[in-house]
């Protein structure tokens, strides 16, 4: 008999981060395959109003604590532990985000559950959960078998499709008291990023522009596309040199090394000094008129064509999709 699945839903400043919906989607899938209920634990200050966004779960446990804005790792783990006792959950799914990093290890230390990190894929085989994890920055993959599908699994960002849809029946929302033994960690304040300063190394999506963009007046199109995708524009050396973009947007030699989830290279040939700065992007989509441009050697998806023709159409479709 398999035990229920429990996911930790993050909340930060009254918002549920996108990664939570990836974890929720993975939890829903596994719970359905295993035929067990899916619980979601929602933590944070004034988190309760957010609960209905998680109704893909069967039951949502809410711990609303004015001091948890956001909670510390050990507090989150203590809360999970309490919910696990009540729900008898066997599988706990966590996001591999900065907010949740460490929660799994604390929980593993306080239970005898095994923790599996960097999970990219999961499937159920009889009463076992078979996980594919990356190791050593993705150079090696490990296959891990959790018998009885019991354990703590931390999911790689971007590995599971997010789900924001709802169950046909409405989920039960249960408020729960805050565990008393939390360590005395005090939250003081948020520090917002400086306006205007964009750290391209931290963007999930980068739209890289090269000389194929031809003219500075085409740059706003790329910027709008980047904004629609939740990322930023960066450039190769010639573009920076012409003063189209600030030096802080340079990728490659003399610039930044970036690892976004998606790198969209528009009109970039992929000279080594650029390539070395973006080669480790999770996904590379390259658009270039020259089919032999070296950028295609490291790209996952390639389009042979003029970036300028593609850009307005792509922007339109992306914006339409967002609406």
């Amino acid at each position, binding site marked *: 008999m398999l035990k229920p699945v429990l996911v930790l839903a993050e909340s930060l400043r009254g918002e549920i981060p996108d990664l939570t919906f990836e974890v929720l989607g993975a939890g829903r899938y596994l719970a359905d395959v295993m035929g067990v209920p899916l619980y979601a634990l929602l933590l944070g200050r004034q988190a309760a109003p957010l609960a209905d966004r998680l109704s893909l779960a069967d039951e949502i446990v809410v711990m609303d604590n004015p001091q948890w804005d956001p909670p510390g790792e050990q507090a989150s783990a203590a809360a999970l532990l309490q919910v696990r006792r009540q729900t008898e959950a066997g599988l706990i799914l966590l996001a591999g985000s900065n907010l949740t990093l460490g929660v799994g290890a604390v929980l593993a230390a306080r239970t005898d559950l095994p923790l599996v990190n960097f999970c990219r894929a999961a499937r159920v085989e009889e009463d076992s959960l078979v996980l594919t994890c990356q190791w050593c920055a993705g150079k090696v993959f490990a296959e891990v078998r959790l018998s009885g599908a019991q354990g703590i699994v931390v999911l790689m960002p971007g590995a599971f499709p997010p789900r924001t849809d709802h169950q046909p029946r409405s989920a039960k929302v249960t408020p729960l008291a805050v565990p008393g033994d939390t360590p005395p960690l005090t939250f003081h304040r948020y520090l917002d990023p400086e306006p205007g300063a964009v750290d391209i190394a931290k963007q999930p999506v980068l739209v890289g522009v090269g000389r194929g963009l031809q003219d500075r007046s085409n740059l706003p199109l790329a910027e709008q596309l980047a904004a629609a995708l939740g990322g930023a524009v960066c450039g190769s050396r010639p573009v920076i040199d012409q003063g189209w973009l600030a*030096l802080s947007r340079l990728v490659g030699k003399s610039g930044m090394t970036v690892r976004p989830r998606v790198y969209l290279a528009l009109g970039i040939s992929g*000279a*080594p000094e650029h390539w070395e700065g973006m080669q480790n992007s999770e996904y590379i989509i390259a658009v270039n008129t020259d089919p032999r441009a070296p950028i295609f050697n490291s790209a996952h998806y390639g389009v042979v064509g003029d970036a300028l023709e593609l850009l307005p159409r792509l922007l339109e479709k992306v914006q339409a999709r967002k609406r």
Partner: protein
Amino acid sequence: MDPVRVSWLGVPGLLLLWALAATASGLFAWRCLRLVGLLKQGRFEDRFDHPGRRRRHALRHVLLQPRIFHERSIGLPHFVMFWGFVIYAACFCWSLMRGLLPFLPVPYPEEVPPVAAALEFFAVLVLLALGVALVRRQLVAPPYLHRSRDALLILAWIGFLMVTTLLGAAFRTVREGESHFVASPISHWMSGLFSELTVSQAGKWEAVMWWAHMVGVLGFLVYLPHSKHLHLVAAPFNVFFSQAATRPPGDLSLRGIRHDVTLGAARWPELTWKQLLAGFACAECGRCDRACPATASGYPLQPQQIVQKIRQQILQHGRSGPLARSRPPAPRLVGDVITPAEVWACATCMACMERCAVWNEHVPILVALRRHLVSEGQVDRGVQVALASLQRYGNAFGKSERLRARWVQAPGLTLCDARREPVEYLWFVGDFASFDPRCESATRCTAQLFVRAGLDVGLLHEAEWNAGNDVRRLGEEGLFELLRQKNQQAMTQARFQAVVTTDPHTFNTLRNEYSWNGSAVPVRHHTEVLEGLLASGRLTVRRPLAGRVTYHDPCYLGRYNGIYEPPRRLLRRLGLDLVEMPRHRERSFCCGAGGGRIWMTETERPRERPAESRVREAATLPEVHTLVVACPKDLAMFRDALKTTGCEGRLAVKEIAELVAEATLER
């Protein structure tokens, strides 16, 4: 009539002359001793080897001054002033001796007609030269000229000395009543102006001129060591002690040192005495600034300023004698006086040293300052990443050393392992040629040419580490030592007769800074080897190439090691028409990559990068389609600059081996 017999205000002339001469030479000697005392506070280095070679070097460059003539507008005037100075100084000493010791049975120099004629001749020449210098300074001053009161004062002073000489000769002519028109046309002509004077009046005026001249020279003697004209005294010593007199300037090691060089120099006494002497020898002519690619590009470096700032530090904070111990420590050179940006802007191309008329050595000074910054851990992020990679993997590319010889894995290439079997040539490939994708084709071509010619060549494979040339010039002396040890260890396991490399940087350090267990192993650049192979017929030109090309002299091949001809001969053998850029051979303009600059992060765009300036220079040559290079870093820098200058399509950048392969190998 003897001028020392004249009394001045009741003081006998002889006594006055003794008093003046004693005071002036005393002050001069005191100043010189103080300056030497300050130099002695610098660190010791041995520049006393091979005195014969040093003497020959100094004689040539002090007496003939070939480097002065590189700039024509001032070359000849300076030469004339110098020789005028020499003649006048000699005659002054003669005159002074004769005046001080009236019992000597010799006449005054101006009493000897040929000497008088020579003095007059030079006085006129020097006045003309002064005119040129004055016009150049005041009316058509080039923008680089450092205009100072000091310089004007000196020019006026020299003029005064010349005028007193001429007037003295004119009065003599009046007094003696005889004319030496042929030998002394000017004084003869001038004597006409004073023809109303009586003989005794003329004699009096002649004595006045003699005294004015003597006082002028003695005053000059006192003033000289306080001015930029200290170079008159310091430069000959500086040339005598210059490294180029006895060994290649490309060798950064110091001889006979007693201090830890890895710490570099934080304050002026931590430089060596020879490096301090540079400040005294500098004539503030600005030749170094005009040659410097960093200055030209708008980077914050002017080599002359570095030397001048050090000189100011010495004079301002240096105390010799018993005071030396009680004084507060001098400010830090880098940080307080010189900015780190200045120190890091240098590409160590040696253009400044090549031009310097007094043979100052700017690059080693900058490296000493860099060593201090490195010892404090103050290095650029990009440099730090490169150095960390060099420590761990032996290359700056962050690649596993096991991949170093991966490029060899191509069909038809069989290069043996020099550690397993003896070879004639050990090919030390170098980082860029091994790892940079832009250099792959050039490296392969070189390999194919060696194989085709049947050259017995082998590699060290993964045992080869970066040779350390640029690491040393970045100031990371400890890492250079480590790299050199690793390579020397690897090379003791190999048997070879000579070393060949395509990289001029590697070439320089292997040739000048590595020891080969006492045996003299020739280190050759691939252009030399390929030229030899073509000359001996081991490679033959099958398809002569046509068209006009230009060739860029790599700093570390040309200025550092004097190799200019082999690559040119090679290009001509291929049938190419070689057109020189305005800046060629010794005047070659650096690509900006040397001295570790290639690893540094660019924080702001300079006016024009050196490589861009160079590519534009090549692109302006009529009908020249190819810029030929003989250095892997040049290949990377210039191909990049082609893109940023928009010269792509108009000009191609090719490694010389690629052209040789095109002409000699079957397709």
